[in-house]
């Protein structure tokens, strides 16, 4: 019994120093790019520089939620709990990224439009996605038994992920019918802006990967603690 659970729970450090270094360098480069190298936008002034991390966070959060989808399906197919660990890690990290989107969006809107929130399509969709996966996380806290929790979360996770394109389209089409000020860069990006944006996205993907790995390890440790507690209660009889 002990050997079985130990072989499934990963040991050693959750993340390696080289990977942290790489991500740190990416972040440094991306910040330099966003804050200094990128051309200043004509109308919005300095605040436009938040665009790079605002959009990158949304893209990375989106990728995180796709990972929840993949993990959920994989769990239902294989019943291997490590897919559940991936799902919860990706969900939490995704929520963190969308929190960034929801906080930086209004900070961007206020100086540009004079109001904090305009119910613009992308931000409203982000809000709904945030709520959706917070519900996923709340669901998880309400089921105690690990396999049952993994199973119900997987089903809800799949439904929530499938909802994502439907949310985006319905809100986008609604906004097309009822236009409002758009929080965003509006026009097209020039080449330099694209390069900085992609660099920032690479940096946030790196952060996403590190955070998911750490959170994954946390979940594995929870299982180890449960297994040890079970053993302890058995041997004390």
């Amino acid at each position, binding site marked *: 019994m002990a050997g079985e659970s130990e072989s499934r729970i990963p040991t050693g450090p959750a993340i390696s120093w080289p990977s942290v270094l790489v991500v740190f360098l990416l972040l440094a480069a991306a910040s330099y790019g966003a804050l200094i190298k990128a051309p200043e936008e004509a109308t919005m*002034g300095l*605040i436009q520089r938040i665009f790079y*991390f605002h959009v990158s966070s949304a893209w990375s959060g989106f990728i995180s939620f796709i990972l929840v989808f993949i993990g959920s399906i994989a769990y239902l197919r294989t019943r291997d709990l490590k897919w559940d660990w991936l799902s919860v890690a990706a969900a939490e990290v995704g929520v963190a990224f969308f929190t*960034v989107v929801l906080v930086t969006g209004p*900070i961007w809107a206020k100086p540009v439009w004079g109001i904090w929130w305009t119910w613009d399509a992308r931000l409203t969709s982000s809000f709904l996605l945030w709520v959706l996966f917070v519900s996923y996380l709340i669901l998880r806290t309400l089921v105690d038994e690990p396999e049952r929790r993994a199973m119900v979360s997987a089903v809800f996770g799949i439904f929530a992920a499938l909802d994502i394109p439907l949310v985006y389209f319905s809100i986008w089409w609604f906004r097309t019918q009822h236009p409002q000020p758009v929080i965003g860069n509006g026009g097209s990006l020039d080449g330099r802006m694209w390069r900085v944006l992609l660099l920032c996205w690479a940096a946030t993907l790196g952060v996403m990967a590190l*955070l998911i790995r750490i959170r994954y390890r946390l979940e594995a440790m929870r299982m180890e603690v449960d297994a040890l507690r079970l*053993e302890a209660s058995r041997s004390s009889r």
Partner: protein
Amino acid sequence: MKNMNYLVAAYIAIWAIFCVYLISVARRMASLQDDIRRLKEGGK
């Protein structure tokens, strides 16, 4: 330096959000590591 304050606020917010998350994960991890050590020692 138009809208400098907002830019600073936004970047601080980003760092704050990730730091809070990282700290919360690190604390939970430390507490679990304690539990693991305690349970393993208890067994011996």
